[in-house]
């Protein structure tokens, strides 16, 4: 049981297709006690239904993961009700649909800021608040989710690629800052998975086909497989690893053509 006696906060669960849900399943199987944040008070019953299989879990609404005051408020509540925690998974990102449906060069100032704010700054904020509110136990681990579109051009990923590049670079700087107090920060770069977010990307299903054709393992990845990598990064088994982007993509990223 890699996560026995560990409390893990998973931020950004939405439905059974969410990568956050795959991570929750894996972490729970490995003994973790789970806490969640989700968006939209109106989704309360849906999220409770979705997470009821994780015994003893609690879910908190957070509408605005890049808003300093809102994150502070919900983190304070989480700490008051659960004590210190051992890990945080950040599975939050957003870009405006119009910025994903036309050439990247036309991204608006507002759209550029929005994608970076929600998808990259939110993780910096989460790390800072967790530190300032003294929420984390010794050896805690923080994990975020990224995608290969940060380094390679994928038609339709557009401004989200820039946001993921900012996120991956943030992981390195955060790892240095938090390393001083023994905390670890890493990212999992998941292969393409059909999630609600992926549905916003034009011609997403063709990306899935290419991975099956070209990845060394010739198959796509599941949210559970990504979850297992996150579980490893949350566990003490990975305590020599920080500041890294770990690919969970059937090896697709190593291929040339």
């Amino acid at each position, binding site marked *: 049981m890699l996560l026995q006696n560990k409390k893990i906060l998973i931020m950004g669960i939405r*439905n059974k*297709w969410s990568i956050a849900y795959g991570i929750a399943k894996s972490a729970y199987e490995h003994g973790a006690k789970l806490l969640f944040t989700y968006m939209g008070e109106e989704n309360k019953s*849906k999220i409770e239904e979705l997470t009821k299989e994780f015994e003893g879990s609690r879910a908190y609404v957070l509408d605005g993961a890049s808003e300093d005051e809102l994150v502070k408020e919900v983190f304070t509540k989480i700490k008051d009700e659960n004590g210190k925690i051992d890990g945080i998974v950040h599975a939050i990102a957003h870009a405006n649909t119009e910025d994903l449906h036309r050439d990247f060069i036309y991204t608006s100032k507002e759209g550029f800021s929005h994608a970076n704010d929600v998808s990259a700054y939110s993780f910096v904020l989460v790390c800072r608040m967790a530190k300032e509110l003294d929420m984390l136990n010794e050896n805690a681990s923080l994990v975020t989710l990224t995608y290969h579109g940060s380094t390679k051009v994928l038609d339709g990923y557009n401004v989200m690629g820039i946001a993921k590049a900012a996120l991956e670079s943030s992981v390195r700087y955060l790892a240095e800052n938090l390393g001083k107090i023994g905390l670890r920060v890493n990212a999992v770069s998941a292969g393409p998975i059909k999630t*609600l977010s992926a*549905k*916003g990307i034009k011609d997403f299903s063709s990306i899935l086909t290419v991975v099956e054709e070209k990845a060394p393992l010739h198959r796509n990845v599941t949210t559970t497989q990504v979850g297992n990598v996150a579980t490893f990064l949350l566990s003490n088994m990975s305590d020599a690893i920080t500041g890294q982007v770990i690919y969970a993509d059937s090896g697709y990223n190593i291929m040339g053509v």
Partner: protein
Amino acid sequence: MSDEEILEKLKGIITEHLGVERDIINKDSTFVDDLSADSLDIVELVMSIEESFDMEIPDDDAAKIVTVGDVVNYIKENS
């Protein structure tokens, strides 16, 4: 599958996603106005339909769907 069978299966999916009563759903119900679905609900519904009926619904086709009857017809024509 007959129209009726498709409709019955769809009602189950819609009830689960939108939390509406099964009895109020018919072929003429519109997702946005009658069943109060927002844009994210609709994407989730599309994902559920793709899974349940083992098919792919391209974005352009999904954008044309307005009523429950549209989905029944789409499934009949494409599965």
